[in-house]
């Protein structure tokens, strides 16, 4: 039976079919739906959201050492967090198969950078698999388990946004069980103290060499001979664009690009007159082809910034042929259209926090989540973003550097559990005094409402302990800890004011559930009384999509308004009720 599955759904299916026992990860676009879809197989596969990718990777590693097949999922920047266990599990090696699924985001649709995570495979000296559609995503997960067990190595399965979120047809298979044999004590194998790590280090190189003949012979890599005037080496979604735009060319399609299949690359290069490497982001393949002494085109035609597309390849083709491709631009009228950027939802409690912060001349160090949208107009109330947890640690860094303004650090609840706890511990330990606001909306909202250690539910739907941010804050040594509802707006502003006047660190837990996830806080839509409204437009400064200004009047869209009352509290003339 064939089903139309996204790349992420197909990987989840592969997890089921490959007999995987343990599937863990941390949400991050475009990887999130993998574990969300594994959940449907929870009778066969244990699955969990871990607090962060490092923990997730270590959980999968522990499972793998008992002989259980395991996976860990994350977005590309998550692998940076998990790089520590990765770089040593590569020495310890695998017992049960372990595949780390890393979803890159070329073009930065939903990310703060567009790193090419393929580099991690070379860095860690482990195999890299790269599917080109959903069927391959499923197949490569299964193949990755086999490679992992055969060579006793972790494997990276790398997708990109267009693989993760495109749907294509997948033939479904049955699950094949793999029963773990249990952990078998073997310290020289599992304990990388220097004396044992040195022989492990040698084995890493031996393993890589042993894989090379296998990679060239693997069915995951193939030559599609056609016209031999031009040969193209391609992998991932770029392969599909190549097939579309260069239908006549011979293609070396690499599904298992690392360790590099040198023999296959040489054979292909020898068979074509001109060689072109088409890959998104870095020159990961091209550099190696050149190192083999083979002349090729690549980044001299193919951009290394942003994602590729059929249109990008048509431009590359035209450039190679010395032609001008007429640009298909948006119609002229499109340039006059109002931009439609993503915004905080109507009745989002975060809006009250940003609106209140707008009243103070402070520096706001922000973090990764829905509340990153607080940087945009008209709120304009976030000054920095770096990575998860940095909202807290950078506030500390600014304070100890002597920043004269008050510094406010912002993180979300899930982000606090991810990387904020250690940052707050640093503030308590090293005694700086920023104001930290934890935007606790009780769920990991930005990636589509996943549960987290504070939400009281596991990924498999079981009730569990709700981690207390308040207790964490006190344990970190913070004495001024407040739990407040930001939609009690005047009191919230008063608390901010007091906190800015205190020479002590303050943690404000701004607790109000995400209204899109938890509808219990929804109230009837509010209305503007046109007889009282003086059109001062103060309410429009909170950037609520439910507030519209048309034909000279402010009105509230009753389909969008959730009755949060922030505009009502802001209105100086009591015109909203």
């Amino acid at each position, binding site marked *: 039976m064939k089903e139309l599955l996204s790349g992420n759904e197909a990987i989840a299916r592969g997890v089921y079919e490959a007999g995987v026992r343990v599937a863990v990860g941390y949400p991050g676009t475009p990887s999130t739906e993998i574990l969300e879809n594994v959940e449907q197989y929870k009778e066969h596969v244990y699955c969990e959201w871990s607090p962060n990718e490092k923990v997730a990777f270590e959980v999968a590693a522990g499972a793998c050492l008992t002989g259980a097949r395991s996976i860990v999922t994350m977005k590309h920047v998550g692998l940076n967090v998990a790089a520590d266990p990765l770089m040593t599990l590569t020495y310890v090696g695998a017992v049960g198969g372990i595949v780390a699924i890393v979803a890159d985001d070329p073009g930065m649709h*939903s990310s703060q950078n567009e790193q090419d995570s393929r580099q991690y495979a070379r860095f860690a000296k482990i195999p890299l698999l790269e599917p080109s559609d959903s069927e391959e995503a499923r197949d490569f997960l299964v193949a990755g388990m086999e490679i992992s067990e055969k060579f006793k190595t972790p494997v990276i399965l790398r997708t990109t946004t267009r693989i993760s979120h495109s749907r294509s047809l997948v033939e479904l298979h049955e699950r094949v069980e793999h029963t773990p044999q249990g952990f078998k004590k073997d310290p020289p194998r599992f304990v990388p103290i220097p004396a044992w790590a040195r022989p492990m280090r040698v084995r890493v190189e031996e393993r890589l060499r042993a894989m090379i003949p296998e990679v060239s012979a693997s069915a995951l890599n193939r030559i599609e001979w056609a016209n031999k005037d031009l040969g193209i080496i391609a992998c991932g979604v770029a392969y599909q664009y190549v097939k579309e735009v260069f239908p006549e060319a011979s293609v070396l399609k690499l599904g298992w690009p690392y360790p590099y299949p040198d023999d296959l690359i040489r054979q292909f290069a020898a068979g074509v007159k001109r060689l072109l490497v088409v890959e998104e982001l870095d020159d990961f393949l091209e550099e190696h082809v050149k190192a083999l002494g083979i002349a090729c085109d690549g980044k001299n035609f193919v951009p290394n910034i942003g994602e590729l597309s*059929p249109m990008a390849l048509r431009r590359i083709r035209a450039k190679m042929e010395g032609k001008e491709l007429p640009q298909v631009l948006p*119609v002229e009228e499109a340039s006059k259209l109002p931009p439609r950027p993503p915004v905080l939802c109507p009745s989002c409690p975060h809006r009250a926090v940003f609106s209140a912060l707008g009243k103070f001349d402070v520096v706001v160090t922000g973090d990764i989540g829905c509340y990153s949208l607080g940087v945009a107009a008209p709120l304009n109330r976030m000054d920095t973003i770096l990575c998860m947890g940095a909202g807290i640690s950078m506030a500390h860094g600014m304070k100890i550097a002597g920043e004269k303004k008050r510094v406010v650090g912002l993180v979300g609840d899930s982000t606090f559990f991810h990387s904020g706890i250690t940052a707050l511990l640093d503030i308590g330990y090293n005694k700086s005094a920023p104001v930290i606001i934890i935007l606790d909306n009780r769920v990991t909202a930005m990636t589509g409402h996943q549960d987290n250690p504070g939400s009281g539910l596991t990924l498999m739907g079981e009730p569990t302990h709700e981690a207390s941010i308040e207790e964490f804050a006190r344990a970190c040594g913070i004495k001024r800890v407040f739990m407040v509802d930001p939609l009690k707006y005047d009191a919230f502003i008063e608390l901010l004011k007091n906190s800015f006047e205190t020479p002590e660190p303050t943690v404000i837990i701004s607790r109000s559930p995400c209204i899109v996830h938890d509808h219990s806080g929804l109230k009837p839509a509010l209305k503007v009384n046109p007889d009282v409204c003086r059109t001062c437009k103060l309410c429009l400064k909170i950037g609520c999509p439910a507030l519209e200004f048309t034909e000279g009047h402010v009105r509230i869209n009753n389909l969008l308004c959730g009755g949060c009352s922030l505009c009502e509290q802001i209105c100086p003339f009591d015109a909203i009720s």
Partner: protein
Amino acid sequence: MNDCVSVFLTGVGGQGILLASEIISNAAMLSGFDVKTNEVHGMAQRGGTVTALVRYGPKVYSPLICEGNARVLCAFEMAEAIRAAHYLAPGGLAVVNQYRIIPVTVSSGSAVYPENIQETLRKCFPRLCYFDATQKAIEAGTEKAANVVLLGATSVGLDLPEETWLEAIRKTVKPKFLEVNLKAFAAGRAAAQS
């Protein structure tokens, strides 16, 4: 771009674009075609523009298309039709919902929603099917079926048999909403044929 048919859907988060894309995919699958789709996730769902693309044919490679290649452009919101106009192939059908969603950039006064949009639409799209899908959906039983009304109009620009569309709707929507969706589809089809 070979012999694949591409449909470009655009609108704003929450308008039911992904369901419409799923029905098109199912109709193409039922007709025995290879199918690929692409959707925008993440950031764009927070009130931003949402697009979905469906491609079908004997063999589909790319999940994305070149500008100027969509056989049908179906816009759930008027301004979004203009933003995506360059994806429509010459001679392609534009289905545009007579429906306006004001972006925050307009409410906050930093941008202006275009006036005389109907005129612009006529200029941009020689083959234009422009009507109030929400009104037709209300007539069919619920305003929530506006997406399926637009799908009905979209189906007129594609070459799949009507029975296949109906089968795809039966396969995709929940049984209790089937009847209203079938009515909505018929209303959209009639609007595009008139």
